C-alpha cells in the first residue's frame, strides 16, 4: 500500500527578522472618509509585512484544502528562526493543491454577468479533459448556469461528486452562489460541446452545509429502452397493494444514528428483523386479502401485532379490534370488502367473515412466537371466531366436497341440482377463489416459517389436507362453550404444532392441486365425521 504524495505536507515558514519587513504593497484602508463632508484627510496607507503575507497564504491554502479534502490529508507547519517551532500537530487535515483545478462558472441569471471561480478535485472534469485538448482546458473550464426547469426531485445519473470551494470566498458573487446553494437550491451547469450545442453536465448542490459538484452522465445510457414491466413476470397482475406497500416503505425508512450512542444490536440486524416481522403475512394483491381491505375495522391490530414487544395498552387495543369484529358479525353487518374479480355477486356475508377470521388468525399466528403477549392475542382470535360456525358450515362443507367431486364428473350437474343450489353457489365461489389463491398460498407457504403457517387455512375449504386437517380438528374442538380441559388441550396442541416437523412429501407437493383433492376426498369421511358429531 503506497500513500499518495499528498498524504502529508510539511510547510516550513521562514520566521527570520527579514520577514518583518514590509511587502511594499500599500493598502488604502481608510477609504470611508470620502463620503463625509468634513474634509478629513485619510490616514496613510498601510502595508503588510512579509510574515503577514506568508501567514495569509498558508491560511488560504488551509481553507481551500480543508473545504475540498476534509479527510485523510495531513499538514504540518513549522516556523523556522533560531530554532524550529512546530505550529500544529498532524491532526489538521489538508491536501496538496496540485490535485485541484480551477473552474469558472457564469451566472447568467442576474442582470450583471459575473463569474464565480470554483475549486474542486480535477476528476470532476475527467470527461471534459478527454474531449478537449489541454490548451482548450487551460486554466479553467467555463460552465454556464442554467436554471432548472422544475423543482421535481429526481435521481440523476451521477458519475461522481466532489466538494467545491470558491476561489474568492468573500466576494459578492461567490457568497451569492454559496448562499443560494446552502439554502437548499440546486444549480444545473451546461457544458459547451465542440458542435456548438450544450449539454447539462454538472449539478451544484449542498448536502448538510457542504457544497458539492455532481458530474452527470452526458453520454448514452446502457439501460435505455428497458423491457416493459407489464410484459415480464407478474406484469399482468393489476391489483397489487401499491399504496399499502408504500406505507410499509415509509415506516421502514432510515434515520440517522448518533455514532457515539451505544447499541447492543447492529442497526442493520434490527432493520432486517423489522422488515421480516412486518412481512410474515403480507398478501401482495388486493384480491388475496380480506383483512387488509377492511383496515378501518381491523386497525390497529395489523400494525401492532408485528411489533417486537407489545405493552398492556397494545394488547388491549388488539383485543378491542377483535371484539369490534365479533360485534359486527353478531350484528350481521356486511364487511366492506371491495368486489374484485369475482363472478356474480361476490362472496356471501358469512363467507366473508369466514375468510376474514381465517386470514386474521393466519396473520396473528404468524407473529404468535414473538412473545407471550402475541400469543395471547392469538388465543383471543381463536376464542372469538364464531362458535356457531361449525353448526352452519359443517354440513355445507360436506356438500362442497361433494359438489367438487360432482363437478369433475360433469360441470353441468351442479347447476341443475336445485336441491343444493345454495351450497353449489358457494362451492363455485370457493373453487374460483381457490384458483385465484393457490399461487399465493404456495408463495406464503414458501416464504413463511412453516411452523407458523400450519394453520393458515385452518377450516377453510381450500385447506390442503392431512396435517392441516388435523389442526382444523383441534381448532374446531376448542370452539363453543369451553372447558378448562379444552383450553389446556388447545394450548398443548399449539405448542406441539410448533415442534412438529412437516411431512416431507407434502412439503414438496405444495400448490399441486392434482394431489390435494384425492387426499381430501379420501379423508372426507374420517376427518369430517367428528366435526359433524360435535355439531
Amino acid at each position, binding site marked *: 500500500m503506497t500513500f499518495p504524495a499528498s498524504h502529508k505536507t510539511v510547510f516550513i515558514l521562514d520566521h527570520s527578522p527579514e520577514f518583518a519587513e514590509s511587502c511594499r504593497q500599500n493598502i488604502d*484602508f481608510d477609504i470611508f472618509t470620502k463620503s463625509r463632508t*468634513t474634509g*478629513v484627510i485619510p*490616514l496613510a496607507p498601510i502595508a503588510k509585512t512579509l510574515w503577514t503575507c506568508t501567514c*495569509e*497564504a498558508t*491560511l488560504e491554502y488551509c481553507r*481551500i484544502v*480543508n*473545504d475540498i479534502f476534509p479527510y*485523510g490529508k495531513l499538514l504540518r507547519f513549522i516556523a523556522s528562526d533560531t530554532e524550529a517551532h512546530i505550529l500544529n500537530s498532524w491532526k489538521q487535515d489538508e491536501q496538496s493543491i496540485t490535485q485541484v483545478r480551477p473552474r469558472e462558472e457564469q451566472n447568467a441569471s442576474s442582470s450583471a454577468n459575473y463569474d464565480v471561480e470554483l475549486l474542486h478535485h480535477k476528476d470532476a472534469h*475527467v*470527461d471534459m479533459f*478527454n474531449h478537449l485538448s489541454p490548451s482548450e482546458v487551460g486554466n479553467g473550464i467555463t460552465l454556464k448556469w442554467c436554471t432548472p426547469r422544475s423543482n421535481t*426531485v*429526481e435521481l*440523476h445519473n451521477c458519475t461522481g*461528486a466532489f466538494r467545491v*470551494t*470558491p476561489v*474568492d470566498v*468573500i466576494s459578492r458573487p461567490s457568497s451569492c452562489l*454559496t448562499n443560494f446553494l*446552502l439554502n437548499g437550491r440546486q444549480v444545473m451547469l451546461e457544458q459547451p460541446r465542440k458542435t456548438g450545442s450544450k449539454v447539462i453536465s454538472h449539478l451544484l448542490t449542498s*448536502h*448538510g*452545509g*457542504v*457544497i458539492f459538484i455532481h*458530474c452527470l452522465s*452526458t*453520454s*448514452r445510457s*446502457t439501460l435505455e429502452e428497458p423491457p416493459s414491466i407489464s410484459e*415480464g413476470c*407478474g*406484469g*399482468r*397482475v393489476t391489483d*397489487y397493494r*401499491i399504496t399499502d406497500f*408504500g406505507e410499509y*416503505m*415509509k415506516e421502514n*425508512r*432510515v*434515520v*440517522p444514528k448518533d455514532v457515539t*450512542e451505544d*447499541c447492543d444490536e447492529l*442497526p*442493520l440486524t434490527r*432493520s*432486517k428483523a423489522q422488515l421480516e416481522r412486518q*412481512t*410474515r403475512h*403480507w398478501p401482495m*394483491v388486493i384480491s388475496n386479502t380480506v383483512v387488509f381491505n377492511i383496515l378501518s375495522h381491523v386497525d390497529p391490530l395489523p400494525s401492532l401485532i408485528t411489533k417486537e414487544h407489545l405493552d398492556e395498552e397494545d394488547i388491549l387495543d388488539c383485543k378491542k379490534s377483535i371484539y369490534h369484529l365479533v360485534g359486527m358479525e353478531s350484528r350481521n353487518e356486511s364487511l366492506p370488502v371491495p368486489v374484485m374479480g369475482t363472478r356474480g355477486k361476490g362472496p356471501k356475508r358469512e363467507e366473508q367473515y369466514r375468510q376474514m377470521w381465517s386470514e386474521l388468525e393466519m396473520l396473528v399466528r404468524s407473529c404468535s412466537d414473538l412473545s407471550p403477549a402475541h400469543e395471547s392475542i392469538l388465543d383471543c382470535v381463536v376464542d372469538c371466531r364464531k362458535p356457531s360456525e361449525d353448526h352452519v358450515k359443517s354440513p355445507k362443507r360436506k356438500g362442497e366436497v361433494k359438489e367438487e367431486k360432482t363437478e369433475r364428473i360433469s360441470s353441468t350437474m351442479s347447476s341443475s341440482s336445485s336441491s343444493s343450489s345454495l351450497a353449489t353457489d358457494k362451492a363455485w365461489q370457493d373453487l374460483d377463489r381457490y384458483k385465484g389463491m393457490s399461487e*399465493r398460498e404456495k408463495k406464503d407457504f414458501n416464504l*413463511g416459517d412453516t411452523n407458523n403457517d400450519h394453520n393458515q387455512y385452518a377450516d377453510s375449504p381450500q385447506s390442503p389436507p392431512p396435517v392441516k386437517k388435523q389442526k382444523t380438528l383441534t381448532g374446531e374442538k376448542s370452539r363453543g362453550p369451553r372447558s378448562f380441559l379444552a383450553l389446556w388441550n388447545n394450548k398443548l396442541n399449539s405448542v406441539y404444532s410448533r415442534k412438529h416437523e412437516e411431512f416431507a412429501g407434502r412439503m414438496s407437493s405444495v400448490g399441486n392441486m392434482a394431489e390435494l383433492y384425492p387426499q381430501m376426498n379420501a379423508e372426507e369421511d374420517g376427518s369430517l365425521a367428528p366435526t359433524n358429531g360435535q355439531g
Partner: protein
Amino acid sequence: MPSIVLLDASLSMARPLPATEGSEEYQRRHLAQHGITTLLDYMAANSRLEFTALAAFSSLWELVVPFTRDYNQLKSSLLKLEVYDKTMMETALAGVSTIILDEWGSATPCQLILVTDGRVGIGAGSLKHMLDHYKPAKEQSLPIPFPFPCKIQVMLICSQAEALQSGTLNLFQKLIDINNGGGNVHFPEGGLSLKSVQQMFLKFAESAYAPFYGTLRCGHLKSDIQLAPAPERYYKKHDFKVVDKVMSPDLEICSFLDIGDVSSPPAISRHLVLPTSTKDSSSKDGEEEDTTEDGKIPSFCVLLHGSLKVENMVAIVQLGFLKMMYRFISDYEVHPYGEDDSKTPFPVRPLEKRSYAQNTVVWIKPSGLQADIQKVLRQARKLPDKQQAFYKELNRLRKAALSIGFLELLEGVASMLERECTLLPGTAHPDAALQLTHAAKLLRLSAERDILQNITPLQTNFTEND
C-alpha cells in the same frame, strides 16, 4: 457492458488453413467470422440487453455496425466484410477510443474484443512500434491506456505455437497490461480449426456474458430477478485501501429512503432489476405459454417497482458488503419524518462548517480588508446603541489581524476610532466617546495580550444605568 468487436481485415487474414483432406478450404477470416457468430449467438440468447458494435481495421479502420442490440444485423454485416491491406494496430485502437468516447463517455466500462490472426504488422503504426514507444506517465498521443475503463480481450486466430514463436503473445499481454483495465489473450486449444476457434469464443462468451441471476428479498417477500447488465467485479485502489468486491446474488432490502434524501449520489454501476420466472425453465417448448402464465403470478419485484414509483422512494439493498448506521423511527420522541410526513432527518450536518458557510476572514485582496473595516466603522458611528455589534466586529478584526501578525492594521484602526471620536457631533451621547477611546487604547495593547482575550466594553455610569 458495451462491447466492440474489432476485426482484423488485413490481407493476412485471407491466408488459408493447412488443407485437411476432403474438407472445404478455410481462410483465417472465415474462422474469425464463425467464432464471432458463435459469440453473438450466445449474447443474443443470454444477454439481449447488451450493446455491441462491429469495427474492422487494416491500415484504416471502419465502424461497420454502430452499438446496437440487433444481433442479426451484426451477424449479416460480419459476413459481408472483405479483406484489405496491412495491419495498423495503433490507428485501429485510436478509432476504438473515439467510437467509445463519443457513445459512452469516460465512465462506462467497455469491452474490446480484438480478433486477429496475430500478425501484428511492422513499422510505424504496428503494435510492436507502438508498445516500444510507450512511456508511462508522459503526455503522449498513443491511444492506450484508454481514457475509459476497458477490458481488452484478444482472440487469436492462430495456434498457440505460432503465437509463442512470433512473440505475439507477449506483445498482446503488454498491450493489456499497459491499458490496465483487465482482459486476456485467448487462443484456440489443440491447433487451429473451425471447431477450436468456435470453442474459444464460446468459452469466452460463457465467462464474460453469463447472465446474472439472483434473489431480491424484503423480509418474507421475495422475487427471482436478473440484473442487466450483469454486475462486474469491483476492484479499485483508493488512497489508503484497496476495494475488491464481487456482488452476491442475494440482494436484501434493508431499508427505504425518500428520493430527495438520496440526493443523486455517484454510482459505480447501474443495472436493471428484471423479475424472472420462479419456475424451472427446463421445458423450453412451452416458452410462449410460460410467459403468459408468469405474467399473471404476482411478483414482488413488480409490486416494489410500483410503490417506489408512486412514493418517489428508493430501497436500500444490501449487496453483501454494506455498512451503515441508523436508528429507528420508534427510537425518537418526535417523529423524524414528521407526523404528516413533512420533514426529513436528512441530510446529517457535519459538525464542522466549511469556509463558505461561516464568517470567514480573507484579506488577500484589499476589498476584503476594507469591507471588514467598514463593518467596524459602521457600528462605531452608531454608538452607544450598537455597542454589542461594535465590539463583536472589532474583536473579529482584532483576532484575524493578530493571527497573521498584521499589527499595522491594529494601529491604523485605532487611529481611525480616535478620529471618529473627534468627529462626534455635539449632540452625541457621551458614552460613544468613552467607548471609542477605550477600544482604540485596547486595540493598541493587543499585541501584548492573549489573542483569545476579547476586548470588552468599558463599564461606564451610562451602561450601568441601562
